[in-house]
């Protein structure tokens, strides 16, 4: 077992644990904190996959923005979200069964796939993947159009969120 494998196993266990805790905690603030841990673990996995840029973005966007946003939302909707009552709905048992079967089926299916045991090819020395990613995103031969569409999507989401969440003065 190499050091990398050790790091991976540790990180995986951390992710699965905090994921499980996040799903099952009654207190949503706690759940959000476990989410942060799980997301951080994913960032570590990205590092293991030689995707340093994505790891940084994971930390910045998910933990820095999304998770914090969740916590704000939890605070704002406080009152019944703090764990006094049941946090799971009526058919949570069925949901657990289904999710477990789903994950099991996926793992079985992946196990049948021949490429699943492939080893990672070595990346060329001195290769700057961040630079390549930046170039690919803005090059006409690459992903400039999805990139621009994503920016429009973000703008639309920004405006939509504003409109939806704004207090309705006329609703009186």
């Amino acid at each position, binding site marked *: 077992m190499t050091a990398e494998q050790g790091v991976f196993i540790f990180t995986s266990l951390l992710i699965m644990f905090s994921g499980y805790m996040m799903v099952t905690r009654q207190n949503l603030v706690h759940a959000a904190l476990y989410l942060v841990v799980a997301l951080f673990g994913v960032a570590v996995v990205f590092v293991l996959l030689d995707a340093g840029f994505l790891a940084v973005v994971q930390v910045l966007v998910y933990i820095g923005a999304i998770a914090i946003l969740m916590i704000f939302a939890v605070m704002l909707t406080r009152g019944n979200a703090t764990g006094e009552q049941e946090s799971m709905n009526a058919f949570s048992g069925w949901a657990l069964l289904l999710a477990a079967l789903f994950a*099991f089926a996926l793992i079985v299916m992946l196990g049948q796939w021949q490429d699943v045991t492939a080893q990672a090819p070595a990346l060329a020395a001195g290769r700057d993947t961040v630079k390549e990613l930046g170039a690919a995103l803005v090059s006409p031969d690459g992903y400039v159009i999805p990139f621009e569409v994503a920016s429009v999507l973000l703008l639309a989401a920004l405006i939509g969120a504003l409109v*939806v969440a704004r207090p309705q003065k006329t609703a009186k």
Partner: protein
Amino acid sequence: MIPLSWFLYLAAGLFGLGLYGVLARKNAIGILMGVELMLNAVNINIVAFWRYLTPGNMSGQAFAVMVFAVAAAEVAVGLALVISIYRRRKTVSADEINLMKW
């Protein structure tokens, strides 16, 4: 070295956890958290396939970036909806938000 399968199994497990959260959580914000987990599982898959199968071009990472963008947008709108609903009905419990029915 870590085989590809390990990453895929991790992603599958994470996806199952997220699915469970989405299906079973009462709280709407909890559901959104589950969605985030599922998206992360997908992202792990995408980046792992890029690293192991097609490291030559950057499409895997580019897709991951797109997923980030979509996730950010989804969370922004989703949370706005939750807050809006909470203002009107004083609840964020998904099984109480059942106006859309017969």
